């Protein structure tokens, strides 16, 4: 904690050393204890934010490659998407308190719960990605057999349909975080969906650049570049609009992750625009930079939210300001 942190958040200032500047100075709390519960989610959920975005990003690249007949880009991205999807499901189930009851999510469909919406999005998204990946894994010598041709027709159809749900999979995680009482997530609800959409596109495109040959990777480069640029802009806009919670986005692990994310994303974007067309190594390096940048972005946002629940100031100060403003308005009205 820096100097702004008040060791006696409970008390009115006594004479003596200058109180810390800013709204921290007269924040009351119960012995400095948090008001909120810190999230019970561990690193698995943060990692899922990345793998879920990657699964969605690679799925749309794979679908586009399929439509354009870019065979190697298609193959790499369907397999990448399937891998990321499997990792996502594993991470999500592992972070449950009762993993063996994961299927209880399928009991209900609840529009008020972003996690329920996400469950059904993933349920719609998953089978197509799985079928497409199974076809890609089929040995070439079997592919001309009749059942294989049937599988191809089927998997192509539902694979493309999966790609249509991918934008939802890429962005709903922003609602998942934003619709909580966690100040670090709730207060960035305006820009966070765009940060996550950009991050997912950058990672999907970056994966295509890493895994496909140069002559087929042009759409992946374009997608990655647009995504990275979008993420950088959205992330800046998000920061500009922050109030007191800007602190948690700048300090500690969250601050380090987000600074790293910005550096890597800028580097990956530059690589995608400048060298990735000509050099295989350059394309791979840019792809890796974009993937790591996207992952760090997710961990940064996740950690910032967690940190914002551990200090009562982030809860009390904005709420108190709202109350005081309302009281002033009432006073202005009655006088």
């Amino acid at each position, binding site marked *: 904690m820096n100097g702004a942190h008040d*060791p*006696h958040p*409970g*008390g*009115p200032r006594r004479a003596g050393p200058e109180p810390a500047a800013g709204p921290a100075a007269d*924040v*009351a709390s*119960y*012995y*400095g*204890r*948090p*008001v*909120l*519960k*810190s*999230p*019970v989610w561990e690193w698995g959920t943060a990692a899922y934010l990345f793998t879920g975005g990657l699964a969605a990003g690679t799925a749309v690249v794979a679908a586009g490659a399929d439509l354009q007949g870019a065979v190697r880009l298609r193959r790499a991205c369907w397999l990448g998407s399937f891998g990321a999807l499997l990792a996502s499901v594993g991470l999500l189930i592992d*972070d*449950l*308190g*009762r993993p063996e*009851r*994961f299927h209880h999510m399928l*009991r*209900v469909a*609840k529009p*008020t*719960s972003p*996690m329920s919406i996400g469950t059904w999005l993933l349920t719609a998204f998953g089978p197509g990605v799985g079928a497409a990946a199974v076809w890609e894994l089929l040995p070439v010598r079997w592919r001309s057999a009749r059942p294989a041709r049937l599988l191809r027709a089927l998997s192509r159809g539902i694979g493309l349909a999966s790609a249509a749900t991918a*934008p939802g999979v890429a*962005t709903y995680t*922003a*609602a998942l975080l934003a*619709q*909580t*009482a966690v100040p670090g997530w*709730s207060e960035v*609800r*305006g*820009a966070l*969906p*765009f940060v*996550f*959409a950009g991050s997912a*596109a950058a990672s999907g495109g970056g994966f295509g650049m890493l895994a496909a040959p140069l002559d087929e990777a*042009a*759409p*992946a480069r374009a*997608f990655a570049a*647009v*995504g990275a640029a*979008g993420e950088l802009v959205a992330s800046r806009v998000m920061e500009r609009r922050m109030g007191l919670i800007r602190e948690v986005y700048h300090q500690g692990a969250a601050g380090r992750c987000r600074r790293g994310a910005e550096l890597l994303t800028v580097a990956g974007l530059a690589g995608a625009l400048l060298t990735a067309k000509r050099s295989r190594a350059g394309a791979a390096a840019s792809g890796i930079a974009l993937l790591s940048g996207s992952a760090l972005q997710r961990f940064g946002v996740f950690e910032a939210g967690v940190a914002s*629940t*551990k*200090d009562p100031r982030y809860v*009390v100060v904005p*709420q108190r300001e*709202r*109350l005081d403003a309302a009281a002033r308005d009432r006073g202005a009205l009655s006088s």
Partner: protein
Amino acid sequence: MTSRELAAPPDALARANGYEAPPPRVGFFTDTSVCIGCKACEVACKEWNHVPDDGLDLLGMSFDNTGMLGANSWRHVAFVEQPRPVGRQDAGLAGLPTGPSGLAHTSEVVEARLRSAPRGGSELGTTPLPTAPGGGAPHVVQDLGMPTFSRPGDTSGPETRTDFRWLMESDVCKHCTEAGCLDVCPTGALFRTEFGTVVVQQDVCNGCGYCVSACPYGVIDRRPDDGRAQKCTLCYDRLHDGLTPACAKACPTESIQFGPLDELRERADRRLAELHGQGVDEAELYGRDPDDGVGGHGALFLLLDKPEVYGLPPAPVVPTRFAPQIWRRVGAAAASFALAAIGAFASTAVGNRR
């Protein structure tokens, strides 16, 4: 009563949730001005509901060694020590700024321990805190500033005596009219009962933990060794048998009152007027207003200081209220994502043809 309340029948909430001919909505009115801090409610709740203990821990927060509501603490008595007199003894009190929850020394000791806890101390009431800050030597003797049973100034003479008051408050799940925990639960484990209360079905909850982050009061938590979310059920089983919840039954001062919510609201209004009449101007009701950020509580409180002094959020808003705005943004972001993909392929297709 506001016009909206008069218009709404006492079972409106349960009816809106699909119950036919439900009983009236019930709740608690916790009048902290008569609480003596005996913790009978905490004990009665643990016994009746088989809530496990979470280890012996001395927190250094006055007589409060529970710390916070949590998976293993469904009632929590907060103890606030303030160098201020009570109500009538000083009519100028109401103009003072919000008071502290404890003395400077205790706050310092407690804060250091909170900071070194894995969840920042929000797991109080679920697991004990680390013994020494930073996980160092566990046997360092710390002066936690525990209260003694001698009167202030007994040992030193009257010149060191100061004004002093205790605030004690038995906290509980608010059984919100618009409950964040219930709205986000993806399994349907959390549900609205026919009594208008909010309860977790233990055979359904899969421990996803979403409710923990969606409660704006930091009430519900996952029990570490069990993996499921736990909180006050307002003694759902006792209500079925027409019994008073265990905590209200055990409370010796009627600080915790149980009953139909519209009746409790009237009682709370009367008590507030009475206290204001006695010069306790700082008394305020918490969760009484059906137009607040959670649509009002099922469990109301009468407080003698600002909510944050007791560790309560001053003006919480249920996260669900932001859902329309959030989904509009998500929709726009998803559309941008799709457009970027289509654009990327279309532009390269055009580029190839040239």
